[in-house]
């Protein structure tokens, strides 16, 4: 077993990316993710990589767009308002089938909002966020260890399916410190095969073009449909989730990130008080673990979605279950964190009163 190291979530994400072979980073300061560019600024040169502090988020994502076109494992990171600015570039990456990795440490919104942790960018992350029909692979860590270990999977999926990938964390996961153990083997980029589409030097081959457009009639449809096939494969092969105490559960909490951490405490409280509660934690937010939720709904008829937003993931749960079970919501918008006690009371209310909405009922 590797030695555990006490690290901040943001630092773990950066270190995890470097260990996963990332050798190019461009970013712009924004709280609460500043430790990522700060860490990369010294760590990447040490690993033979490149760090660029861009003049804006817009420029940063386009530097990454350019670097990705050369086949290098590259990354940018930001927080909510900055991710909004990057959306155009992310859409181009999706349209040009470029594998890039994006760290997104959510803060309160909309607008400038605040700098505390929040989960209000679920829709933006899972619906694409930028213009056009596309998907991004989105993983939601709930610990500093996962911050450190998810970049490996993100790069793997990004290159396998040629798709932008994202770690969607919240400010709390980014700022907290926990012991980290990096469990994936370290990747030396020199051992990776250069992708067949990468732009490069000293070629005796045909020219290559990286682009997201095709103005000829009917051709864009073919281009997007080819991508849809990969999305379907991802839905079948790359969905991840975690379950806790689900074997005898009568109510399932569905939560990710910090909400899932609080929900564990709420679940323990509920169990102490005789409520049979389990936790279903989607790890990939896209592809969303629909099939498993449907399977669970055969015996569990009450689901409670807990999220630090006005209720965004709840729509995916509803879409997945499609009326097969009750879907309740404990929402906490405005970059506030629910307490275990609050979540427990909501569960108690669901069991006792069968009420539907709790966010407004506090």
């Amino acid at each position, binding site marked *: 077993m590797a030695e555990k190291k006490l690290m901040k979530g943001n630092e773990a994400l950066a270190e995890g990316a470097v260990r996963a072979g990332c050798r190019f980073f461009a970013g712009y300061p924004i709280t609460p993710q500043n430790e990522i560019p700060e860490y990369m600024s010294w760590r990447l040169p040490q690993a033979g990589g490149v760090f660029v502090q861009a003049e804006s988020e817009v420029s940063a994502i386009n530097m990454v767009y350019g670097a990705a076109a050369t086949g290098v494992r590259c990354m940018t990171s930001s927080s909510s308002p900055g991710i909004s600015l990057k959306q155009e570039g992310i859409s181009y990456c999706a349209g040009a089938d470029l594998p890039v990795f994006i760290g997104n440490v959510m803060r309160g919104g909309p607008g400038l909002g605040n*700098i505390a942790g929040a989960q209000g960018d679920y829709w933006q992350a899972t619906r694409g966020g930028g213009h056009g029909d596309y998907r991004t692979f989105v993983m939601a860590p709930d610990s500093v260890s996962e911050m450190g270990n998810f970049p490996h999977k993100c790069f793997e999926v990004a290159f396998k399916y040629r798709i932008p990938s994202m770690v969607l964390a919240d400010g709390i996961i980014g700022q907290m410190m926990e012991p980290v153990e990096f469990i994936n083997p370290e990747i030396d980029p020199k051992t990776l095969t250069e992708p067949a589409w990468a732009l490069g030097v000293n070629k005796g081959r045909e020219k290559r073009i990286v682009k997201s457009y095709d103005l000829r009639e009917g051709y864009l449809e073919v281009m997007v449909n080819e991508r849809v096939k990969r999305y379907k494969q991802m839905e079948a092969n790359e969905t991840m989730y975690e379950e806790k105490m689900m074997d005898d559960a009568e109510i399932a909490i569905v939560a990710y990130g910090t909400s899932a*951490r609080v929900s*564990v405490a709420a679940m323990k409280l509920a169990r102490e008080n005789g409520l049979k509660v389990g936790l279903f934690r989607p790890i990939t937010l896209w592809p969303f673990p629909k099939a498993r939720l449907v399977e669970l709904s055969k015996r569990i008829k009450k689901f409670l979605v807990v999220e630090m937003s006005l209720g965004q993931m709840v729509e995916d749960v509803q879409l997945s279950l499609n009326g097969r079970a009750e879907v309740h919501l404990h929402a906490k918008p405005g970059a506030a964190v629910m307490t275990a006690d609050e979540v427990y009371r909501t569960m108690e209310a669901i069991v006792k009163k069968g009420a539907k909405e709790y966010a407004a009922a506090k």
Partner: protein
Amino acid sequence: MYQGIRISGFGGQGVISAGVLLAQAGMMEGKEVSFFPSYGAEMRGGTANCSVVVASDEVSTPIVSTPDTAIVLNEPSLAKFEPMVKPGGLLIVNSSLVNSKASRKDITVLYVPCNKIAGELGNGKVMNMVALGAFAAATGAMSVDAIAKALPKVFKKLKPEVIELNIKALMRGAEFKLN
């Protein structure tokens, strides 16, 4: 075993480093730990605080909303964190800077003149260590020795004599026994 701790004081009093140190010490003792700072827009000299959890089981939420122990190093922190302490919990007050007395009767309050002791040791900066020493002795959540061992891991650039001074401060703090 579960110990949720909140440390609060002026920026520059070593609130954040004290929190990281507790987490590092807990981890080195084989416990589950988490550390979560207040972050962002505070100016130097403003109030900083952090949450630390040291537990035998997996830590659920890293934000300690009802601390088993609150360590308050300045006056504004007393007003903010005294009401949050769990009934039966512990409140450590830096009596060098906090003139007010705690009003709750359902918690244990320990007054430690952190700045005064640090001054006696010749370096006011180690006042946070005095508080941690008192915490270790009063709660038994971790030993002074464990915190001492964590010092060089967290403060990699500290000279050995400064580490020694920090350890002395921890031990002086540990002399403050509960009534």
